[in-house]
Every structure is written in structure tokens, then in C-alpha cells.
């Protein structure tokens, strides 16, 4: 191996090591802060949303003996502390150029940060759901997603768990920080249904009531 080749390998490995270390720091930067507890919503007998703040452990016990019948920590929720800025350091999401971290003032935002986004999200998540379904969500981090033409959106990353009579269903989501609407979801629970095969005619699927 020539001296030049050795120097080239040395330089390449040095760069790779530095990149690795830099990414490690970056990863630490984006690790979620556990500043929030899980926020729990369900419908009361009149269909009105009621909520509480619960500990993480209680969400872990979703399969257990209904610890939610008497939720703890019935205090004023954190989301009532109004702020017009994201409540924690924002993470930039720029798929086309992951390394860029522009100044917020240089971006044209399509939305604004709404401190009431959690209430709006809860309403959205419980929309259409029967009283037997409850939802838990936990804010993870605030995100600025960079779109084309220097446009951007304030988003929130949250973990969401529905408690249903078929078991828990969980996923992560990006939420519009202004409207509380769900923008994107990922990481959904994958069930392997281990039950006897039912005849096709007895499957509880959807039955059409008209044709085109």
C-alpha cells in the first residue's frame, strides 16, 4: 500500500469517526425530554370529554385492572399554562437537507404555535370514538418541518395510545401545532391474531348497501 493510499484511508476514517461522533451528539440533542406526563381523555356518560394527567406507569398498565377508573393527580393540566412558543427546544425536520438548521426568522411559517394544541388534539382523537374507547397521548418534542420554498410548519411529535376492548393500539404522530390535527403517523401496533379461523361468511366485515 502506498503512502498516499495510507494517508487517504487515514483521512477517510478520521472523517467517518468525526461524523459518527457528531451524529451521536445530534442524537442526544433530539432525544425526547420527558417533561410531560401522559394525558388521558375519555368520554363521560353524556359524551363529554374529561381528562386527567397520568403517570407513564399507568399507561403501561393498559392491559391491567383498569387503573383509570379513578385517575390520580386530578390537577389543572399543564396545557393550561399558555405560551405562544413551543414549550421545549424545537427539532428541525428537513428530509431534503437533514443537516440544515435555519433561523426560525428566515422561514415562512404556514401555521402558528397554538398553546391549546393539546386540547384540540384530544378532541380530534376522540372524535367518532364510542364511550368504551379512551385515549392517552404524550408530547415528545416540538418540531419545525421545513417544506419546499423555505416554507415551514410548527409540529408536535406525540405518542398516542388508544385503549379499546380489542386491546391497546399505539402509534406516534406529528401534530399541527396550531390546529391539533394529525399530519402523519408511524410505528403502529402490529397484532398477530391467534384465534380460530372463522368461515368467510361469518366474518364481521363491511357489507355494502348499494352499488354504482
Amino acid at each position, binding site marked *: 500500500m502506498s503512502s498516499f493510499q495510507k494517508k487517504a*484511508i487515514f483521512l*477517510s*476514517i478520521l472523517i*467517518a*469517526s468525526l461524523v*459518527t461522533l457528531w*451524529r*451521536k451528539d445530534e442524537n442526544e440533542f*433530539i*432525544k425526547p425530554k420527558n417533561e410531560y406526563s401522559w394525558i388521558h381523555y375519555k368520554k363521560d356518560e353524556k359524551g363529554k370529554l374529561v381528562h386527567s394527567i397520568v403517570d407513564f406507569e399507568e399507561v*403501561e*398498565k*393498559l*392491559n*391491567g385492572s383498569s387503573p383509570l377508573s379513578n385517575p390520580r393527580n386530578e390537577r389543572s393540566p399543564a396545557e393550561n399554562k399558555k405560551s405562544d412558543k413551543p414549550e421545549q427546544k424545537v427539532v428541525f425536520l428537513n*428530509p*431534503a437537507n*437533514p443537516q440544515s438548521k435555519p433561523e426560525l426568522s428566515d422561514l415562512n411559517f404556514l401555521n402558528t404555535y397554538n398553546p391549546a394544541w393539546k386540547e384540540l388534539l384530544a378532541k*380530534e*382523537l376522540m*372524535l*367518532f*370514538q*364510542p364511550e368504551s374507547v379512551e385515549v392517552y397521548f404524550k408530547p415528545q418534542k416540538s418540531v419545525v418541518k421545513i417544506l*419546499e420554498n423555505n416554507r415551514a410548519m410548527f409540529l408536535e411529535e406525540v*405518542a398516542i*395510545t*388508544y385503549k379499546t376492548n380489542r386491546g391497546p*393500539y*399505539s402509534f*406516534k404522530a*406529528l401534530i399541527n401545532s396550531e390546529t391539533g*390535527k394529525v*399530519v*402523519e*403517523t*408511524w*410505528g*403502529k*401496533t*402490529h*397484532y*398477530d*391474531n*391467534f*384465534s*380460530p*379461523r372463522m*368461515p*368467510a*361468511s361469518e*366474518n364481521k*366485515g*363491511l*357489507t*355494502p*348497501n*348499494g*352499488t*354504482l
Partner: protein
Amino acid sequence: MQKKQDALQKIKIIGLGGLISSTLFFTSCVPEVGQTKLRKKASDSATSNTAGSVDATYGRVLLDNPIVLSGNSTLSQTVDLSRYLSSPQVIVDDFFLRAEGPCAGLETCFEVKATANSNSALQSESKKWAYVTTSEEFTQVNTYFHLNKIMNQFYQTIYGGYANAWDFTTSNYVTSYPQNLVDTNGNINFFWQNPYQVYAECEIAGNAYFDASKDELCFGKDAKYAQVKFAHDPTIIYHEAGHLFIHLAINLRNSAASTLTTQSLGAVSYDEAGAIGEGLSDFFSYYVNGRSHIGEWALGRFLKQSRPLSEDDALHPAGIGTDDASSRITYPNYLTYDPNLPEVPYEDIHYAGMIISHYLVAQSQDFENYCGLTKAKASNAVMNLVIETLAELGDASGKGTDLAVTGGGDNVLGRVNGSASHAKTWITHNNPITYRSFVQTFAKFVKNTLGNSSLNLCNGSQYSQDRLEQLLDRYGLLIFRTYNDYRNEADPLSGSKYSVSVNPANRSLSTLIKKNLIKFDPTDGAAKAYVIDNRDQIGKAIAALRTRGLALDMSDQATNFEYNNGNGKISRGEVVGLVPNLYNDSNVTMGGIQVLANDFDHVARVLDTNTGTFKTRPCIFSDNDNWPTEAEGGTYDPSCSTATLNPNKSANLEVAPICLVQYNGTSSTQWITQKEFMEKLAMDSSSCLKSSEPEACFIRAIPGADQATFSKIDPKKTWSNSLIDPQTGKAPSFKYNNVLFFEISKQIPPGTIFDCRFRIRFTNCDDCYHDPDTLRKNYDYRDNEYNGHRPFRILHFQFPIVD
């Protein structure tokens, strides 16, 4: 630098050592692959499995499931499992049942608890892990042992694969392993952000799950016999762990690129990606224990749901085997085949996945036979190729490999999945993982690794392309014409980035069908589509989809589906479900049918010479639906001939929702966009379904519920007719994956006619993937085309809106 070199050297040693150690394991502990006779334990006497009977760090486990260990296929649910315990095995040198790293630098990879209610991982002050087999503690120890075993084996495969792919800073072939996958401490940069919580006695009957968002694995119990615990069947542990490792593999490049979101294998309840995920998870069981059957105890004994992994398995009926070249379970004919009840077709991802599990086992065996690899090395090689395949296909950075030129930007094509800006739309909708894309990519990696003599991975030999293609063909999977080597960067006219062609002489059992042979049911009086609009069904469906993270992006129009009148027509204000009634007009089976209702590039901005302003007009695709006429508002604008990349209709004026509106003007009747119709009605966008989406002002496909999938359609049949139960004569009802859901605005004037352009394709379709353009030489379409019309058959639904 020395540290980095040391780390890489260490990885190479670990990888090699892993192979050696797993080879030893394989040759000493497991029955032969393809063995159909159940092995009986030498002694059936019960073992007293108490703490006093083992040394510290040891415990006894079930090395396989009770059916295999007993040799009794009719074992009672009340069996004394202590009769089948192993000799003492090393469990863990810890006071808690938790596994150490290296998993992305975490101190603990996973910890095993009884249930979610347990305060901590199982604790033993003596570090002795022996418990009576009826106890919850035993189930946890058994789960831990097998989970730890498969995790260590998977790590060795990753280390070995990475060491094969990268020689320090130089790649040995075009690999999807990212160069920065392993850090200086030997930690793999996985999406493994928290210790996995594993519930061995999960309080869910008849179920087990993998949860990527909460980092959980759950093993339930039989719904009828609670003493039959799924975690007593190691093959089920391997299967569920397989879902976890698939998740890590498909996000291998995303993790290295520090993306925020992750990708999954499968988007809806049935699709081919999900089926492949189940087949791969079954293969994980073979990868660990070398046996070609899964779930004899947890699935087979009481549910009649166990699955073979080879045609030689006794569960398969006569006529299926490996001796005859044409007796394998072929794609797509066996997509709805359940060997437990073979006469009744069944659409389910677990059974549809058997084609890939059988192929991978057969491929592993062929590596053994041809390359002279041990069984362990052969299955390890296959697993490494699976990881490479998933990492490339799941890459949301748009690159697929560190050697790519670019990952693309908003309007710049990357190498894979469109571009970094829009990859998710490609992975879930525009070009999702199918049997075709999976085996094409897998085959490319076989060709580039074991088929590359310079890498010497085939024991001094070279696994030939013909041999690879002939085995794929036996499974009906040779449904690609080139290996798509450089994906979007490939150029048929290039001297370097060209795609290697498949030898057509090797295609015997694999069939390719032209897209125009899928159509609406031509039977007299047959419906084009079925409509579901009654409030109860729609309400339950939408609520269920939303708990699964789908259909969450809806308008504020209906809060309780109060406009749904259940008249079986499409009425103002409703949320409706549509199921296209598709027909296979060819003489062979179609597989992997997908109907898309998402936005696509099918309109053009054209200068109106009369007014001097630009208008958006529907493209006339003369090579496809040839609709509408120019007099009806259509255009042959040159921009219609190829598709743009950005799928976002608010940013790309050539992209529009699929439904157009008939507008009766003063001089002619024209088809116009919904946005133009809104303007004709002098409406403000605030009155649209969503004010931010005037393009979908009146009819809006609900994101996440905007594609329908069907496993297969037999020749000259519809999907329903293909799945009729011959015993009852009944077809199955529709599942969520069969239905497209739409919101209909209450602002639409009654009588307004809409025409919706649905894009349809199927997996063994020739011109849905191979670009017929003479200059492209049957290369795969570039990804931008999947944002347009060319790879699809466009079929129309035209309907009036009623009150």
C-alpha cells in the same frame, strides 16, 4: 483512527465468531430442516425445576414447543410441561431478567415482565432462574431465553453482514448497509431508543403483538385454554421478535440518517408488504431453530393455524412438494392458501406470507447444497440478504445506499422511494413493497454477493444468476425483467449504471400480465362498485381505522356521520365507502391488486388563449383512459406525457385529487377541477371540506383510507368470486383494506356529476412496472412516473350526487 480501526476489526471478528458459534449451535441442538416427524424427548420423566436444582445464573426452559419436544401432536392442554424441560441453561448473570446491550448503546436491550402491571422485570436474589412450569416466572424465563438467543443471533448476522459489505471505508459491493451503522464502541445505530418491555403473560386472549411506538412485545394466551401460553412456544417468540427485527432492518438507513419517523412493512390490514412481513417473521423461526414449521403448540394444536415453511412439510396436501419443479407454492396462486383448510380460500397476511417463507427456506437450502454452506451459514446468509433488501426498500432518505449520488430534494429524484422529501408517499402508496419489489431487490443482493466470485461467499464457487432465477421461477416470483440495479439512477444508454436483465428462458411458471386486462366486472348488470353509506357501519369503520393511526386527517363537516342516510348512493355530507368490483380478464391469476385514490399528476396548467390566463385542465392520456375529449375540457399538453415528482397538490399544480366535476357552461359541458368548480360557484375555500384544500373542496379521499388492496383475482373472475367458500357458496364480507373512504361535501349542488379516476395495478403486471418506452428497454419506471398515470390502468367511477 486506531480506535475506529480496532472497532471495525472487532466487528469482523465478532461477525465471524458469531457464525462459528451459531454453526456449532445448529449442528448440536436442532432437528433437520424439512424434518416432518416429531422428535420425541429421550426421557419423558418430570423434572423438578426449583431454585435448589440449578446453579446461579441457570434455569431450565423449553428448547422447542411442547408438541415437538413430546413427539405427540395431540398433546393435552393440561400436560405437565416439566416433562419436557431442558437441562440447565445459562439465563442471565443479573438479579433481574433483563438483557444487556449492545443495542444502540442502551445498557438494557429488553426486560421481561409477567404483565404490564408488573412493577419490574422478574427478580431473583439468588440469580437462580428455575421455576415450576405452571408459574408466571417460568413463562418469563422461557421468553427471556429465546428472545436473548434470537437477539444475539440477529446481532451476529448484522455484524457479519456489515463486515462483508464494508472494508473500512470502501464498500465491497453496492450495499444498503450504511457506513456509519456501527459506532466506535461496536454499537449498532438502530431505532432502538428504549429498552423493550416484554410481557410474557400478557393479559390479552388469543393475541400477541409488537408495538414499535411503545417498544413492547406482548405474548398472550389461548382464548379457550388459558394454561396454553404463547410464550411456551419458542417459534412464536421468534416470530414476534421477527417483527421487531424487521422494524429495525427496514429502518436501518433511516436510523443512520437520524430521521424522525420510521417506516413499516405494511400499511393496511391486508397488503403484500404486510404479507411479506409475516412470511419473514416465520422465516426467523427457521433462522433460529432450523425447523420448517412454526407454531405447532400455540397455533396448531388448538387453533389449527400452524404454518409450514417448506413444501416437504406433512401439513401440505398431496401434490405439493419440492421434488417436482412445478409443485411449489407459487405466486400468486397460493396467496389465499391455508394448508389447514386448503379447500377454502382465505385472505390473510399470515397465509399470503407463506410464499416468501417457503422461498427463503428453499433459497437457504440451495445455498447449503450448491455452495456447501452449513445450515447455519446458509440461513444466516439469507437473513443478511433480507436485511439488505429491507434497508434499501425502507430508506426514506431517498438514497438506498451510501453510494447513491443523491437522495433527491423536493423536485429532484433520489435513487429510491421518490425522494427524501416525499418518500413516505412512495413507501405507503405510490410504490410500496410488494412481492415483486422484494424479490427483485433480494435477488439483486444475491447476485451481487454470493453471485460475486471475488467476495468468495459461496465457498470458492459462484452462485449463478440462472440458478437464482430458476428457483425464483419455481415460486412464480420471476416477475421482473431486470434487477433494477441502480434504481432511479439506472440508464439503459449508460455504459456503467445499467440494469442486468433476467434471462427470459428461465421464466416458466412466472407470469406477467398486461394492465389492460384488469377491468370492472363486464357481466351484464354487474356493479362497477359497491357502496357502503349506512351510519353504523361507516361510524364503526372510521373509529376503528383512527385507533390504528389511519383516517385521522378528516374535515370538520361531520361529527357523528349525521349526514349518512344509508340509501346506498352517494349523498351530500356523507362519508362513504366504495369497493371497486374488479375483474381479471386474463387467463392467469392476478396478485397484489392495489387501487389508489390518492392525488396524482393528471392535470396540466394550460394558457387559455381567449382570456390570456392559465387554467388547470385534465390531461387526456391517449395511452390509457383517453378521457375526456378536448371539447370536454381535456388537454394533450406536453406536460401530461410524464409525471412530476412532488405529490403535494398545494405545491405542484399538476397534481390534483382524483375526482373531477362536470360543469355545464353556456356553450359546452366540460370536466373541470374541484377548485375551478368552487370558483364557478363563487364559493370561498372556507366552505370547502377543508379550507386549506380547495383542490379537494367537494370530494376528498380520506388520507390513510385512500387505497384498497386485494390479495388475488382468479382468471375470468372477480375478487368476490375468487374467494367464495365452496362449502357454503358464500363470498367473504369486505375488510377495511378492501374499501376506499371518501368525504362528500354538503355544499355540492344536488345532481352534480363527478368522475373519479382510480389508478389500478397488480404485482404480476408487466407494464405496471416495466417502462414500455423503447429507449427504456423494459427498465423499471423511474419513481416520478408512479406519481402519474403510466404504470397504472385508470378506471373511472362516474356518479351523481343525490340529496
